[in-house]
C-alpha cells in the first residue's frame, strides 16, 4: 500500500495519540476506582468501630445486669438493626459461629484483617475484630455493590468520551495535516510537470516555512536549468548557423568550379573561352582555400594558448601600414600610421602575441581599405593599452555593427565577393581579440566612416 507522507503522519499521530489518551483515561479510571475502594474501606472501618463501641457498651451493661443474660440476644438485635443498613454481622466464639445476620453469612476471618469478597455480582468488604476482651470475634461485612456499579458507569462515560474525542481528533488532524501538506503536494505536482518537460511552470510560493524555502529553491533551480538550456540552445543555433553559412559559402564557389569544368568538358569552347574558364576555376578554388585557411586559423587560435610577449603597438602599426601601403596607394587611399619606436621601448606596449596582433591589424586595415573609395583616408593610431584603425569609408549602421563579427557576415555582399573576401576577416579579428582578453569596439556612421578600437585590458 502506497501512503503519502501526510497520510503516514496522520495514521501514526492518530494511533499514538489515541494510545496515550486511552492509557491516560484508564490509569485515571483505575486510580479513581482505587480511591473509591479506599474511602469505602475507611467508611466501613468507622462504621465497624461505631458498631463495636456500641456493642461493647451494651454488652458491658448486659453483663453488669445479671448472670443469666444471653449475649446472643444482643447479637441478634444488633444484626437485625444493621441488616437494614446493608451491614452483616457474624459473631464467633472460639472459632465457632455464634450468630450470623441472615443473608450475609461470612466465613471466619482472623481478627484484625480486611478483605474483599465477591459473591456473584455482589462485592463485600469484610472486616474482622476481637470484641469483649477477646471473647468474641466480630466479622463485619458490608456490601459495596454500588461502588462497582458506579465504576462501570464511569467507565462507560469515559469510553463514550474517548470515542467522541477520538472522532473529533481524527477529523481535526485530517484537516490540519491535509492543509499543512498542501504546499508539498503542489510542489510534487510542479516537479511532475517539470519532469514531463514543461519548464515554464513554477512552484507556488506562500508562507514562510520549509516548504516555502523548498519552493523558492526549486524555482531557482528550474530558472538556472532553463537559463543553461537556453544558453546551450543559443550556442547550438549559432553553430548551426555557422554550418549553414559555411555550406552556402562553399556551395557558391563549388557551383562555379563544377559549372566551368562541365562547360570545358561538354562544349566546343575556343581558346579564349578555355582560359576564362580556367581563371574562374582557379579564383574560385583560391576562395575556397582562403575560407579554409581562415577557419583553421580561427580554430588554431581558439584551441591554443597564446604566447604573450611585450609588443610595441606603434612598431606593429607601422609594419602593418608598410605592408599595405602599396595596395592603399593603388586605390588612391591615404594610409597614415604612427612612426615606429621614437617614444621609447615601453611606451604604448601591450602583452600579446606579435604575429596574431599583426594579423589583427592587417585584417582591420585591409577592411578599412575595402570600405574606402579613392581619396579616402585611413589613420592607424595607438595609446596606452589601445590601438585604433579609423577610415573615411562608407560606414556601417548599428544593425550592421551588431553582426559584423559573425562569420560570413558581409555589409556589402557583392562588393566583398568581388574583392575575394571570405567574410571571415572580422570573425578572425574577434577571435584574436578574445584570445588576448581585449575588446573590439566599433564606432561608425553610414557615409562618414568607421573607427575600430582594440582595447587591451592588461
Amino acid at each position, binding site marked *: 500500500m502506497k501512503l503519502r507522507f501526510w497520510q503516514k503522519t496522520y495514521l501514526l499521530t492518530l494511533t499514538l495519540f489515541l494510545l496515550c489518551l486511552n492509557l491516560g483515561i484508564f490509569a485515571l479510571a483505575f486510580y479513581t476506582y482505587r480511591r473509591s475502594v479506599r474511602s469505602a474501606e475507611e467508611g466501613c472501618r468507622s462504621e465497624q468501630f461505631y458498631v463495636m463501641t456500641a456493642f461493647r457498651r451494651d454488652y458491658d451493661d448486659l453483663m453488669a445486669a445479671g448472670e443469666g443474660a444471653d449475649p446472643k440476644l444482643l447479637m441478634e438485635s444488633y444484626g437485625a438493626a444493621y441488616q437494614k443498613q446493608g451491614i452483616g454481622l457474624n459473631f464467633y466464639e472460639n472459632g465457632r459461629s455464634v450468630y450470623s445476620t441472615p443473608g450475609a453469612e461470612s466465613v471466619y476471618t482472623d481478627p484484625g484483617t480486611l478483605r474483599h469478597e465477591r459473591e456473584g455480582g455482589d462485592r463485600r468488604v469484610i472486616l474482622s475484630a476481637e470484641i469483649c476482651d477477646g471473647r468474641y470475634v466480630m466479622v463485619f461485612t458490608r456490601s459495596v455493590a454500588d461502588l462497582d456499579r458506579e465504576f462501570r458507569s464511569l467507565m462507560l462515560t469515559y469510553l463514550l468520551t474517548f470515542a467522541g474525542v477520538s472522532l473529533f481528533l481524527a477529523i481535526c488532524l485530517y484537516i490540519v495535516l491535509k492543509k499543512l501538506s498542501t504546499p508539498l503536494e503542489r510542489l510534487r505536482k510542479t516537479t511532475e510537470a517539470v519532469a514531463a518537460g514543461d519548464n515554464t511552470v513554477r512552484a507556488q510560493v506562500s508562507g514562510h516555512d520549509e516548504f516555502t524555502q523548498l519552493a523558492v529553491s526549486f524555482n531557482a533551480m528550474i530558472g538556472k536549468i532553463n537559463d543553461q538550456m537556453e544558453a546551450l540552445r543559443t550556442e547550438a543555433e549559432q553553430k548551426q548557423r555557422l554550418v549553414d553559412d559555411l555550406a*552556402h559559402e562553399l556551395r557558391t564557389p563549388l557551383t562555379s568550379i563544377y559549372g566551368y569544368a562541365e562547360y570545358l568538358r561538354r562544349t566546343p569552347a575556343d581558346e579564349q573561352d578555355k582560359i576564362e574558364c580556367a581563371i574562374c576555376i582557379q579564383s574560385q578554388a583560391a576562395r575556397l582555400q582562403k575560407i579554409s585557411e581562415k577557419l583553421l586559423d580561427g580554430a588554431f587560435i581558439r584551441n591554443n594558448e597564446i604566447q604573450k610577449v611585450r609588443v610595441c603597438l606603434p612598431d606593429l602599426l607601422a609594419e602593418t601600414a608598410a605592408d599595405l601601403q602599396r595596395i592603399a596607394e593603388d586605390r588612391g587611399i591615404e594610409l597614415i600610421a604612427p612612426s615606429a619606436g621614437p617614444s621609447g621601448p615601453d611606451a604604448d606596449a601591450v602583452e600579446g602575441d606579435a604575429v596574431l596582433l599583426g594579423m589583427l591589424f592587417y585584417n582591420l586595415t585591409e577592411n578599412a581599405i575595402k570600405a574606402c573609395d579613392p581619396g579616402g583616408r585611413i589613420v592607424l593610431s595607438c595609446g596606452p593599452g589601445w590601438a585604433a584603425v579609423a577610415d573615411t569609408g562608407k560606414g556601417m549602421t548599428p544593425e550592421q555593427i551588431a553582426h559584423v563579427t559573425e562569420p560570413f557576415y558581409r555589409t556589402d555582399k557583392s562588393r566583398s565577393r568581388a574583392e575575394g573576401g571570405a567574410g571571415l576577416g572580422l570573425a578572425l579579428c574577434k577571435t584574436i581579440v578574445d584570445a588576448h582578453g581585449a575588446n573590439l569596439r566599433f564606432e561608425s556612421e553610414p557615409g562618414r566612416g568607421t573607427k575600430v578600437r582594440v582595447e587591451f585590458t592588461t
Partner: protein
Amino acid sequence: MSKILIAEDEIPINNLVKKNLSLVGHDCKQAYDGLQAVEMAAEEPFDLLILDVMLPKLSGFEVIGRIENLPVIFLTARSNLADRIMGLKLGGDDYLTKPFEMQELLARVEAVLRRTQGVSRDFAFGEIRVDFSSRKVWRKGEEIPLKPKEFDLLECLIVNRNIALSRERLISLVWGFDFEGDSRTVDVHIGQLRQKLGLKDEIRTVYKTGYRLEIPGKQGGGRT
C-alpha cells in the same frame, strides 16, 4: 531563340549561366543586383528571368513582386523546403538549388519556355529543317522518315546543341529512366541519325563524355 535576363550577384556563376544559355542559342542580359534586374526588366521585354534569391539591394522574392508577366526560374543556395515553396508560391515557374548542373538548368529553361511560349516550334540548321509539332524532318527540302526514338534523340540533341551529353543522360532523356537496354542502343541510333541526315561531322563523339550536336555561332534558328 529567346531573350533571357540573368539576375545573379556571383559574377562567375552569372557568366557561366550566360555562356551555357548562349550556346543553345539564347540571347542573354546580365544583372548583378535586385534593383538592376527590376530596371532592366522594365526597359525591354524578356522571355525568361533567371533569378537568384539572395541578391543585394532587393532579394529575389522582392524582385518577383515588382515585375509582371515574366516567367521566372529561381536559383539559390538555399535548399530548404520552406524557401522552395515560398519561391513557387510567389509565382516562380521553377526552382533550382546550387550547386546545379548546367544541363539541369537548360532542361528547366527549355521546359519553362515551351510552357510559356507559342506552339509554333521548328528549327533549321545547315541543310536540315525540323518541325517539332508534326515530328517531321526535311533534308534539302526532302522529307526524311525517322523512327520515333530517332526523332526524340534528334530533338534532345538540338535542345542541348553544342553541349556534349553522356550516353546515360541520353538514355534517361529519350528512353526514360527505366530503360534496361545497354548504352550501345544510343550508338546505334546516333549512327542512324548521322547516316539518314548526313550529320557525320555535326554529331561529334566527345572523348570520355558522349555525343554533341555542333551548330556553331548564330547558325541555326527557329523556336525550340
